[in-house]
């Protein structure tokens, strides 16, 4: 034995193994354990699925009561045929896990404030944010309440069992790709995680207020209430509400009255100091379109229903298509990996869809605490004991972080001395949110999956509390309807738009509006119902709906205009409409801009771009340069008008919405904000602001043109990010038009996350597409195979078959048999 070389090479071998078995820091992130990751028998190579893989199989699941047959079609959509409901959800859980396990766990980790556990200390603030919002608290509360219904409890438990059966059978080398990349392992799934996922949707669709209310409070303090109310007006001249203008409503069942101190304490005649914006907040563009056309307007004489929820676009997709058929019901649609049942879809009798109601259901209260231990707070004239919850945040590679959150009569204290922005100045802000009140969770969708008619639909949606939605409905028997449903706060004017005083119950919510008073429309004379996140009613409705900035106006206008004009409608017409790129905002704004332009004073280059704008067909199709020029001028104009004044505020302010500036332009008023605050010797007019905007936009456009990016599709550059925002796992530079205020609401990272059209003929004619694929595995050809179809505005014809038909169908490519022995 040669001792020295032996020792050297032994140490060298061990050293190399240690290095290859360690996550090494590179830049801001960490590499996978390279030896493990590259090992063909254990690492990522095992996730590279053969493109011609077979998905046939016989699977034993001990917990099944009977036998389940699953037919997979050529798009890898499972059609589940079970002998009972519980088995169907058991199988759905198994399939969700098989195709989307990593995503299901990741999304619920986000909701539970557990990201640091898998990615490290960078995400501690994000984790605190979600925990301080009371996400886990609310999920537990909802679970407790919803589980009182035995069917729901059984469904969610069977689903969890299915997920866990899959995890238990999962060989270590078969765990999804992202676990290998980040180096961790799947954990057991629990029913609570389904509720955490639903809480994440509540956050995404109703929690804009966590940032907005702070900014609005800043704005009110900065401008004073009178100016604020003018600048951020709640009047929307162009509004075409969900329930038409002029509808008469019964007087409010809950008579809300503003507290006597409202002028001084709330509208801010006394300035109570500023606060800053929250670090996070859901995307402002989270919205959707839905509509139903009655048989009186269709070629077939049967209703057609359409829905496209607009959400952040991610891979793996939020949605997973599925058919669930049992002796009690047969339903098809988009499901959430993480939850049983179908969320948006149809059965053999009815179809339904949802858009976000956008109503304000989240508020801040300014609390007084005795000291920083958070143990006692002042409420109704006495010191009350707060419930202090300890949050233990595990951090990858670092010691745990302990956070304390006080729960008050209003809810959890989100901001306090330990969690604040630079200018909260020791404020204690408690959060009150309808999502904290529990609720029946999944019950609405469970019932909709089984609904046979309008009454079933109404009963089902009346169990829905948060996030408030506009539920659209159509049935084979010819009914169409829409109802805005949720637990909506009965508010006095502007209640909750700003931080409210929390030292007593004067500013407490005075009630939840009864379901019977929520806006609804059934079988209207005009032959259609629709919603696009606009205000649901005009001002005759006896309750305050919330700040206008929560309600986009223009998509609703163009949808109603189109539907009113259409006759002999077919599913193909609706496809065309759902992917339409007409820009109704530009239709109104272009003339308002052009009237301020004196062409003789423009440079040759400026003239060129104004020429492009003038000749533009008002469509945001991918090739249109006019759409980019319009966007560049409008953005520059907003900057010219708002930036100088708003930058003077030490705290972040929200810029007024586009309709407000457009209205100012249309009225051509001498406008205070047009004057550049940074040029005290000069008074700029609106016309000056437009000229500045054109100069700036010309520069932008000419730079874009040099790079070959003046066409709208190139400029907008839509992408679908992987949930970890890793480019090679994302889809970039997608050729798709559309944008904000457009029916095809596709922006850079946001847009129609599931397009569905259902024609209620005897054999239902349905179409669907979402920007993703059924498999969550980046190594599968089914990972993103729908993306190009979606971008091109095309659809897949949905297969909705009986078991007998599925057995014989040549379009069913694989058969999975599930048995319990």
């Amino acid at each position: 034995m040669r001792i020295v070389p032996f020792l050297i090479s032994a140490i060298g071998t061990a050293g190399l193994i240690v290095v290859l078995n360690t996550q090494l820091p590179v830049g801001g992130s960490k590499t996978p354990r390279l030896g493990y990751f590259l090992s063909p028998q254990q690492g990522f190579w095992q996730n590279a699925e053969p493109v011609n893989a077979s998905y046939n199989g016989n699977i034993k699941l001990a917990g099944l009561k009977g036998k389940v047959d699953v037919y997979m079609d050529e798009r890898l959509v499972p059609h589940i045929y079970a002998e009972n409901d519980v088995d169907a959800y058991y199988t759905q859980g198994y399939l969700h896990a098989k195709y989307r396990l990593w995503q299901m766990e990741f999304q619920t980790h986000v909701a539970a404030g557990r990201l640091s556990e898998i990615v490290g200390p960078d995400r501690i603030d994000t984790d605190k944010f979600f925990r301080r919002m009371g996400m886990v608290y609310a999920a537990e509360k909802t679970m407790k309440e919803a589980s009182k219904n035995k069917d729901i409890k059984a469904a969610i438990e069977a689903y969890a069992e299915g997920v866990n059966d899959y995890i238990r059978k999962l060989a270590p080398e078969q765990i999804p790709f992202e676990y290998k990349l980040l180096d961790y392992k799947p954990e057991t799934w629990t029913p609570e995680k389904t509720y955490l996922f639903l809480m994440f949707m509540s956050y995404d669709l109703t929690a804009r207020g966590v940032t907005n209310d702070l900014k609005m409070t800043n704005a009110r303090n900065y401008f004073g209430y009178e100016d604020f109310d003018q600048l951020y007006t709640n009047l929307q001249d162009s509004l075409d509400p969900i329930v038409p203008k002029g509808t008469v409503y019964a007087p409010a069942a809950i008579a809300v009255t503003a507290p006597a101190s409202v002028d001084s304490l709330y509208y801010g005649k006394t300035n109570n100091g500023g606060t800053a914006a929250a670090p996070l907040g859901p995307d402002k563009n989270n919205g959707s379109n839905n509509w139903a056309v009655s048989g009186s307007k269709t070629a077939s004489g049967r209703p057609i229903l359409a829905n496209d929820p607009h959400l952040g676009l991610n891979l793996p997709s939020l949605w997973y298509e599925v058919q669930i058929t049992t002796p009690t019901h047969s339903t098809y649609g988009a499901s959430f990996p993480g939850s049983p049942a179908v969320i948006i879809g149809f059965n053999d009798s009815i179809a339904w869809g949802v858009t976000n109601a956008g109503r304000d259901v989240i508020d801040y209260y300014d609390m007084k605490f005795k000291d920083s231990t958070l143990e006692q707070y002042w409420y109704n004239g006495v010191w009350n004991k707060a419930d202090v919850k300890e949050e233990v945040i595990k951090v990858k590679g670092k010691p745990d972080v302990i956070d304390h959150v006080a729960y008050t009569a209003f809810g959890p204290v989100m901001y306090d001395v330990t969690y604040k922005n630079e200018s909260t100045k020791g404020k204690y802000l408690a959060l009150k949110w309808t999502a904290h009140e529990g609720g029946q969770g999944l019950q609405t969708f469970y019932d909709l999956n089984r609904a046979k008619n309008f009454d079933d639909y109404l009963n089902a949606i009346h169990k829905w509390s948060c996030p408030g939605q506009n539920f659209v409905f159509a049935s084979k028997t010819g009914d169409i309807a829409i109802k805005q449903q949720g637990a909506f706060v009965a508010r006095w004017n502007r209640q909750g738009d700003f931080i409210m005083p929390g030292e007593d119950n004067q500013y407490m919510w005075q009630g939840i509006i009864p379901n019977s008073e929520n806006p609804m429309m059934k079988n209207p004379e005009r032959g259609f119902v629709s919603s696009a996140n606009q205000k649901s009613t005009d001002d005759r409705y006896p309750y305050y709906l919330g700040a206008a900035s929560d309600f986009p106006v223009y998509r609703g206008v163009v949808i109603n205009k189109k539907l009113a004009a259409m006759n002999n409608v077919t599913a193909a017409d609706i496809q065309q409409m759902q992917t339409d790129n007409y820009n109704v905002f530009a239709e109104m704004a272009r003339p308002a801009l052009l009237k301020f332009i004196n062409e003789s004073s423009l440079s040759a280059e400026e003239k060129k771009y104004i020429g492009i704008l003038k000749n533009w067909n008002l469509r945001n199709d991918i090739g249109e340069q006019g759409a980019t020029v319009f966007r560049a001028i409008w953005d520059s104009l907003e900057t010219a008008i708002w930036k100088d004044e708003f930058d003077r505020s030490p705290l972040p302010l929200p810029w007024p919405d586009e309709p407000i500036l457009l209205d100012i332009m249309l009225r051509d008023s001498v406008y205070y904000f047009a004057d550049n605050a940074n040029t005290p010797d000069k008074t700029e007019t609106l016309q000056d602001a437009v000229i500045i905007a054109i100069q700036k936009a010309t520069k932008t456009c000419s730079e874009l043109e040099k790079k070959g990016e003046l066409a709208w599709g190139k400029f907008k550059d839509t992408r679908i990010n992987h949930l970890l925002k890793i480019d090679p796992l994302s889809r970039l530079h997608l050729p798709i038009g559309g944008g904000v205020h457009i029916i095809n609401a596709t922006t850079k990272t946001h847009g129609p996350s599931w397009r569905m059209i259902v024609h209620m003929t005897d054999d239902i004619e349905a179409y669907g597409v979402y920007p993703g694929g059924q498999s969550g595995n980046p190594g599968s050809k089914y990972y993103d195979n729908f993306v190009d179809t979606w971008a091109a505005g095309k659809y897949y014809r949905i297969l909705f078959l009986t078991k007998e038909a599925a057995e014989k169908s040549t379009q069913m490519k694989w058969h999975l048999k599930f048995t319990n022995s």
Partner: protein
Amino acid sequence: MKFLSALLLTALLAFATGLYGLLPWWSFAFTSFIVAMAIHQKAGKAFLAGFTGLFLLWSVLAFLIDNANEHILATKVANILPLGGSYWVLILLTGLIGGLVSGLAALTGSYLRQSPKS
């Protein structure tokens, strides 16, 4: 002949340990070490046999998987790592990593058997 049997045995045993997903990925370091002790060769040859055995095993396995996958995942990973998106470079890197660990383990085994004079 010794070289070839060492190489093949190294690859075969590494493949066998890799079948048990619960063993760590580097378990083949032990088998390569043992092979080099059992089939005794000079240090340089032992390293080469150990290296080549794993280089071939890992790169051939990767190649086969990648081919059946039509390079979908390898191209993505070769962009993450970053290797310019080349699945070929990724396959060779895979072989190289396995080969180096195995070669060094074999070298260690060879030194353990070798007397100072031989």
